[in-house]
């Protein structure tokens, strides 16, 4: 029996690689140990292409493509770490740091934060943009978890994991533009929402915006890898 597999070959950062048709540039890069920075992307969740950190350059096109959703094409030449991309990535991270009140030293996720790590990896030494210092709330009404909007970067991982994996869809985004905010149910307290208390959102949150109350004051690493195992187990069924 022959399996009909459509194979594409392409070049990523001057390295020749092969891929199945329909694979994203990010998947292929990861398979070949080429690191592309990501933030809203999480293995096991649907992609939205929102954070723009995984943008890559394609030879012959002036348009930058998000590697998490752009699929491979035969013969395409991808550059993942040009000077132009590095500059944009730093700029986007700067926008995030200046957007809300990210104060690492008092954050439960200090040392385990994807935003912090990305800042370090991308060589972000200072923020030139004016800090916006918005007045935001903390909702600690849930018996186990807390949401601190000061640290939220609106990656919508919580929204997606709750909808796609847990199937509860209690998280969503309210408002638009700079006033966007994640909410539970129809903007009621997390504690009185239809939350199933599964805690998936907390584990996938890249920053300290969602955290476990029992971990406050201690090390709070998160384990988003559970998603892949869960997906594997579900597929096996």
């Amino acid at each position, binding site marked *: 029996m022959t399996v009909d597999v459509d194979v594409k070959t392409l070049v990523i950062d001057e390295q020749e690689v092969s891929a199945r048709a329909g694979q994203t540039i990010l998947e292929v890069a990861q398979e070949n140990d080429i690191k592309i920075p990501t933030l809203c992307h999480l293995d096991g969740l649907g992609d939205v*292409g*929102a954070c723009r950190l995984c943008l890559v350059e394609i030879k012959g096109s002036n348009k930058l493509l998000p590697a998490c959703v752009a699929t491979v094409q035969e013969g395409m030449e991808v550059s993942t770490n040009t000077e132009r991309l590095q500059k944009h990535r730093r700029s986007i991270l700067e926008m995030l740091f200046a*957007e809300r009140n990210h104060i690492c030293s008092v954050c439960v996720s200090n040392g385990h934060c994807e935003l912090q790590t990305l800042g370090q990896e991308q060589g972000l030494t200072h923020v030139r943009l004016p800090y*916006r210092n918005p007045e935001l709330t903390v909702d600690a009404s849930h018996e186990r978890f807390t949401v601190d909007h000061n640290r939220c970067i609106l990656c919508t991982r919580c929204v997606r994991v709750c909808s796609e994996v847990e199937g509860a869809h209690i998280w969503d*985004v309210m408002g*638009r533009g700079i006033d966007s905010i994640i909410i539970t149910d129809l903007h009621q307290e997390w504690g009185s929402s239809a939350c199933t208390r599964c805690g998936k959102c907390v584990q996938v949150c890249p920053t300290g915006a969602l955290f476990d109350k029992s971990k406050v004051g201690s090390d709070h690493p998160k384990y988003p890898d559970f998603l892949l195992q869960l997906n594997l187990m579900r597929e096996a069924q």
Partner: protein
Amino acid sequence: MTIEELDQIAESTRAEYDKYDHEINVCMGTGCLSQHSDNLKDALAKVVETQGKNVFVRRTGCMGLCAAGPLVLVDPEEVLYQHVNASNAEAVVASLGGEPIAALQCDLREHFDEQVHVVLENSGHIDPEKIDDYIARDGYQALLTALSDMTPKGVIRQITESGLRGRGGGGYPTGLKWGTVAKAAGDLKYVICNGDEGDPGAFMDRSVLESDPQRVIEGMAIAAYAVGASKGYIYVRAEYPLAVSRLTNALRDARRRGLLGNNIGNTPFSFDVEIRLGAGAFVCGEETALIASIEGRRGTPKPRPPYPAMSGLWGRPTLINNVETFANIAPIIRKGGKWFASMGSERSKGTKVFALTGKITNTGLVEVPMGISLRKIIEGIGGGVPDGHTFKAVQTGGPSGGCLPAEMLDIGVSYDALLKVGSIMGSGGMIIMDDTSCMVNVARFFVEFTMTESCGKCIPCRAGTAQMHTLLSRICAGTGTMEDLELLEDLCITVKETSLCGLGQTSPNPVLSTLKYFRNEYIEHIVHKRCPAGVCNIEAPVEVLA
């Protein structure tokens, strides 16, 4: 409904109107209605009735020259009156057959002579709420001809040959888009008309929907036949109540006449259209956000590809075009793609409707061949800047377009030419500014608009526009520094190159173009702490006060 039946309706409608000695057309578009042209029409009808005159008083759509409204057009003499109100009704009726009323007559030859009406050919001439008026002016000929004499491929060939490009702003070749949707696999396909016109100062689509709704429906039906769709949606802003009511009325009439529904023109082709109302989000004009909105989800854009042509509404191949694009279809099928391609410039064919607003004498709607110079549109057709002021800049393409200075007025209007000088065609809004406008403040105004209308999904647009706004506000307040200016430029490039959808990608255009052409105004604000136009409220430096 067959072509013969259509011809019969057309002839009997024309014969009905021919019975009258005169026809008085009263503009009842939103602009003239706001000046009570409905009362004027009632007054005219009453005078005609009491005097027993053999005159027909007709409600029509927009006549274009909104600045001079309410407008009245007397046929067959083709006399146009401006600023008419109910108290003039008797005089207008009395003048019929004799000398026109000099005091009311609008004699703007230059305004009308340079224009070529394709999309607006019926606007101001037919009653938008009567389908037979549209049929009497060759309406639905194109659809029935296409259904009986042309293959879907033949229709697409005509559209491709016409060189028509998307009128929503992107300028994507319409024929190519139709061909892609036609080739996409699947039995169920959709046609969507994008009527979510949200640019400040733009009202082309509103006028077309208010003045000639059947034309848009016919264009959609032809498109559906060409791509193999059976269901259509028109997405209109809820802020356009008149357009919505006229469209609703038009859809009902088209169904009654058998021009929508099952087996149109006694062929196997079936097609129907539903209206969907926008809830006030500018970003829903972006096609993927619009589709999400129709599906009942939050109106946020998705990365493309996949393009709607492959996976659109509910994951099905979807053709999505703007109101004005669909309004061009029927004449192209009637007169042929070559006829359309004979107008316009090399790579931008046909005509384009522009909404002239701001500091211009003849505020209103104009339709001109592509390639015409900005100078002709503004100084000729538009009548120039009023009140003795001098022209400073024109912004084309809505809030995300660029501001072009007087030196650029001689470029021909086309998709490519405008892009080259740092602006965009956009949907066709043109805001004219004079020497009383501060360009920094103008840039700040438009950035504020995009900042408020950003959906918040991607970071560069959500946070970047807010940062741009902060920096621009500083400069306007006289507290900006040269470092701020440098930062602003950096920010503009990142937002432009990294944003997810067109809204974010084009949002820095007002800043970049004013920086390019009016940089000295920024420097004046920053270094000399003064606003050359006297708009910005800059406090005097502290040392002067001391």
